[in-house]
C-alpha cells in the first residue's frame, strides 16, 4: 500500500482531508505530482489507497496555486462548531462569500440521465412554494450582501407549476440576474414558455452535452438531440440570453467540444459556454462508466485542440474567487463569424482578475472603462485590426454611453453582449473531494432559510439527508454528516 510507487518521479505537494469513495468517510488525502500530472490520493484505513487526476500539468497547478483566491468575507457567518464538512453553514472558517446561490426548486425531472450527479427521489415530487423560495432569497441577500447572479435548478425547474412566479420573485434588489438551468425539453415543446422567459429577462442555462444521438443515449438515457436543437432555435428566436452547459465526460463526448464552441462563437444569443467536468457521484454519475476524470487544465487543453486554436489554453485564468481546481474562465470578443479574440490580449491579466473578485461577471466599472479606452488607443495605434477596434469602440459606447449613467447590472448586461465567455467548472465527487476546495467554494445552496452550504458539500454530504430530495438513510451510501459534536 505504498503511496510512493511506480516508476515516475513522485513529488509530494500538500496534505489535506478528503473522502473515501467506498465508505464515504472523511480520510487523509494528499496532492502528489507523478511525472507531469497531479493526483489527489487518499488513504482510507479500511479501503486503502485511491487516486484521481486533478491536473494534467504540475506546472499549471503550481502556478495556479500561487495566485490565491481573493476572498470576500461573508457579511454573516456562523461560529464554526465542527470539522469541515460537518455543520456547514457557511461557518466562520469558510474562505469565501456566496457569489452564486444555487436553488433547487424541485426534485422532479423528466429525464433519468446516466450522468446525473445529484440525488432526486422519484417516489415523491417536491415543488418549492413561492413563500419558501422568497424566504430563501431573503436569507441569501442578508447572508451574502447581495449577489450578481442566482441559479434556479432542480430536478428540472421548468416542471415547476409556479416557475414564473418564482422568477418574478427573484427579480428584486440584491439579485442581479436570474439564471435558469434546464434540459430544454419543455422549452422545445412550449414556445410560450420561451417567450415568457425572454420577457422576464431570465438567462437560460441549457444543458447541451452532444449533438450525436448515440452519445445522447449514453449520457441521457435516450436521444434528445432533436429537442435540444428545437430549444436552441426558440431561444434564438426570442433572443433569450443563453449559456450552454456541457458536461464533459472523459471517453464519451470529448469529440463534441468543437461543435459546441462553434455554436458559442457563431450564435449571437449564446453568451457563454460552461464546461462542467463529469462528476462521478449521485444517482447516475456514481456508477457511470468509464470513470475518467478530466481536470480543469485537461478541459482547456481539449478546448484549444477542438477549437483549432481559436481558443487557447493560455486564454484561461483561474477564477479568482474560487479554488483553481474548481473554475477557470476565458473571455473573448467574438467577431460573429466564428473567430474570437481573447480579452487577455486586450486587457491586462491582473485587471481582469481584479474585476472578477465579486464572482463570475466582469465588474463593468470606471476602471474597466478606462482600461478599455487605453486598449482601444493601443489597438488603434497598432493599426492592424480594424475589426477589433470597431468592436471595442462599440462595446465602450454601449456600456459607458456618453452622458448617461447605467446601474451596475445594466452595464454588466451590455458589456456581456459583446463578450463570449467560456467557463470550465469542475465539481468534486468522492474521488476528488478535498476540504481546501470546499472551504473556498463561492457557489452555495441555501437550505431552510438559515444555511448556505457550499455546492459540493451539499451535493456530497447534505442532499441525501434531505428528505425532499432523497429517500432515506442508507439507500445509497448515505454520507456521514452530523451537527456539532
Amino acid at each position: 500500500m505504498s503511496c510512493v510507487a511506480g516508476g515516475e518521479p513522485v513529488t509530494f505537494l500538500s496534505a489535506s482531508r478528503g473522502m473515501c469513495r467506498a465508505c464515504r468517510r472523511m480520510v487523509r488525502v494528499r496532492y502528489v505530482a507523478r511525472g507531469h500530472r497531479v493526483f489527489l490520493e487518499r488513504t482510507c484505513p479500511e479501503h486503502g489507497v485511491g487516486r484521481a487526476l486533478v491536473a494534467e500539468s504540475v506546472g499549471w497547478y503550481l502556478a495556479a496555486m500561487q495566485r490565491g483566491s481573493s476572498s470576500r468575507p461573508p457579511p454573516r457567518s456562523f461560529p464554526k462548531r465542527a470539522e469541515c464538512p460537518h455543520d456547514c453553514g457557511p461557518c466562520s472558517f469558510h474562505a469565501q462569500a456566496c457569489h452564486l446561490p444555487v436553488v433547487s426548486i424541485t426534485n422532479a425531472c423528466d429525464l433519468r440521465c446516466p450522468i446525473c450527479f445529484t440525488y432526486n427521489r422519484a417516489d415523491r415530487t417536491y415543488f418549492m412554494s413561492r413563500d419558501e423560495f422568497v424566504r430563501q432569497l431573503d436569507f441569501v441577500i442578508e447572508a451574502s450582501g447581495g449577489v450578481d447572479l442566482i441559479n434556479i435548478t432542480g430536478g428540472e425547474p421548468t416542471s415547476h407549476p409556479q416557475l414564473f412566479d418564482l422568477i418574478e420573485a427573484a427579480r428584486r434588489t440584491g439579485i442581479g440576474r436570474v439564471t435558469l438551468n434546464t434540459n430544454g425539453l419543455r422549452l422545445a415543446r412550449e414556445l410560450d414558455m420561451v417567450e415568457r422567459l425572454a420577457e422576464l429577462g431570465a438567462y437560460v442555462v441549457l444543458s447541451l452535452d452532444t449533438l450525436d444521438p448515440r452519445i445522447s443515449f449514453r449520457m441521457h438515457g435516450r436521444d434528445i438531440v432533436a429537442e435540444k436543437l428545437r430549444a436552441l432555435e426558440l431561444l434564438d428566436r426570442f433572443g433569450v440570453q443563453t449559456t450552454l452547459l456541457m458536461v464533459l465526460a472523459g471517453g464519451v463526448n470529448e469529440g463534441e467540444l468543437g461543435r459546441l464552441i462553434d455554436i458559442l462563437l457563431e450564435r449571437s444569443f449564446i453568451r457563454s459556454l460552461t464546461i462542467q467536468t463529469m462528476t462521478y457521484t449521485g444517482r447516475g454519475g456514481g456508477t457511470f462508466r468509464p470513470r475518467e476524470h478530466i481536470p480543469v487544465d485537461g478541459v482547456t487543453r481539449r478546448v484549444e485542440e477542438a477549437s483549432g486554436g481559436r481558443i487557447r489554453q493560455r486564454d484561461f485564468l483561474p477564477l479568482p474567487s474560487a479554488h483553481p481546481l474548481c473554475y477557470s474562465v476565458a473571455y473573448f470578443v467574438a467577431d460573429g463569424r466564428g473567430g474570437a479574440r481573447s480579452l487577455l490580449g486586450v486587457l491586462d491579466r491582473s485587471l481582469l482578475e481584479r474585476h472578477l473578485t465579486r464572482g463570475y461577471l466582469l465588474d463593468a466599472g470606471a476602471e474597466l472603462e478606462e482600461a478599455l479606452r487605453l486598449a482601444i488607443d493601443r489597438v488603434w495605434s497598432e493599426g492592424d485590426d480594424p475589426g477589433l477596434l470597431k468592436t471595442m469602440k462599440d462595446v465602450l459606447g454601449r456600456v459607458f454611453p456618453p452622458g448617461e449613467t447605467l446601474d451596475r447590472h445594466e452595464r454588466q448586461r451590455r458589456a456581456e453582449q459583446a463578450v463570449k465567455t467560456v467557463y470550465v467548472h469542475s465539481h468534486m465527487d468522492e474521488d476528488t473531494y478535498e476540504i481546501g476546495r470546499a472551504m473556498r467554494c463561492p457557489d452555495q445552496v441555501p437550505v431552510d432559510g438559515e444555511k448556505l452550504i457550499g455546492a459540493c458539500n451539499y451535493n456530497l454530504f447534505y442532499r441525501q439527508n434531505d428528505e425532499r430530495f432523497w429517500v432515506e438513510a442508507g439507500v445509497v451510501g448515505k454520507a456521514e454528516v452530523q451537527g456539532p459534536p
Partner: protein
Amino acid sequence: MMQTDLHADSASSCLDATLALCNACGRLCDAQIRLDQERVVLVKWCPEHGITRSLVSSDKSWYLRSLSYVKPGTRPLARAFDGCTACPGSCGLCPDHQQHTCVPIVEITGSCNLHCPICLVSGRVGKELTVEEVRSVLDHLIRYEGKINMLTLSGGEPTVHPELTGILDLCRRPEIGLVSVSTNGIALDRDPDLIRKIRDRDAVISLQFDGFAEEVYGSLRGRGDLAALKQRVVERILDAGARLSLTVTLGRGVNEAELPRILDLFFATDLVLSLMLQPLSYGASCDDPLNVLTIPDVVRLVAQASRGRLTRDDFTPLPCSHPSCFALTYLLKLDGGALVSLPSLIDVESYIDIIKNQALFGTDMQTLERIKDALYSLWSSDGMLPHRDAVLGRVKRLLNDISALGRAGSHRDLIDLGVSNVKSIFIHHFMDRATFDLSRAIKCCNHYAMPDGRLLPACVRNNLTAIGS
C-alpha cells in the same frame, strides 16, 4: 470558545489548505494557508480553542516563488514501517513519508550541562546511548540509506557523553561522509584536549554560537557568561586546526545585531565550513506567533549584515525538503580568498537541480560536470561575469582532483573535497507548535535516528511528543 474571525483582514486570501496544530492545545486540525497583505499566515481551527494563527513567512513573494521549487523526493532503501496509518500515526518512517533521510541526527545522550530557556528538546529523558546502541543506530541508518553524507551527533549535549571518542571512532566507516558534533562548547572550554580528539577523528565541531554579546546568551541560554566562553572556544578550535561550523539561533529582537560579526567570523577562515542560522522556534508556547522571524527575514538580515558580500538573490529554498523549511547558498572558494556564490554563477534551474536532495554539497563527478556545463552555457551568452577565469580554474581543478582520487576515492574523500572547496550558509526554520504544518513534516529530510530503529522527522518529534517518546 474563542472565535476570532477568519477574515480579520479583508485583504487576505486563501492559498491552500493543510493540517496544522492548534496554538493552544497542539491538536492536529484543519488549517488554511492565507495571504495577508505581504505576509503568509497559517490559520487553524480547533473544536476546543477556535481559530488561532501564526506567521509562516513575512514575504509573500519569497513564499510563492519557493512553492515552484519543489522536486521529487528520494525513496530510502528501507523503512521502519511497511504500512501507513493517517500521518503522523505510523511515523518513523512509513511509506507515506516523501523524503529520505538527508541529515540524520543521533542523540547520544539526553543529559545537558545547560538549561536553555529556548531548548527545543527539553523534557527528554536523560538516558545516554551505549556505544553498542549507537552502533545499532548506525547500522539501521545504513540499511535505510546505504550511505550518509552527513551525520550529526547531538543530545542533550553530546560532549558530556563519557564515550564520545569511542562513538566518533565508530562513525569512521566508509558509508559515512562527514560527522559533526553539535555542542554548546562548555566541555571544550574545560577540556581543550577534547577539541584535538574530535579533530583527529575528522569530525566537524558544530558550535552553538549566537553572537558576541552577554545579553544574547543571557536571553537565549540563561547564562550571559557564555559570551566570553564561546569566543575562547572558537579560538581554541581554530588554533587546533579543527573544522568548525557555526550554528546560530536567531531570535527577533534578540540577536539580529550580532549578524555582521558572526558573518565576519564565518568569512575569516577556511576552517569555518558552514554557517547554520535557525530562526528561533518557540516550542509549545509562543507569546506572539504573528511576530516572529521567518526565512525571508533572515535572508534579508544576512544580506544586510554581510557588508556587501552576499545578496538576497544568493539564497534559494532547498528543493528536497519542503521549501518553507530551508534556504541556503553555496560559496565557491577561489584562490586568493574570494568567495563567489554558485547561484550567482549559473542559472537558477540548473542550480536547483544540482542542489536537490542534498543538504551537503557533494562533490561527485556528475554534480561538478553539471556545474561546469551550466557555467559554460551561461558564460557563452554573457562574458561579463565576475571571477570568470578564477571560477572555471577552480572547477576544473576540482574535477582533476576527483579524477585523481579515482576508484580508490571513498565517499568520505569526496565529501572532504567538497567542504574544502565550498562554504555554505543554511537557514533552517524548525517548526514549533504554532508554525507546524503537516505538509512540511511529510517532506522532511532532517530525521532523528532513534535507538528503536525509527527515523523521526525532527519537527514531528519536537512537537508531537506522544510520537517522539
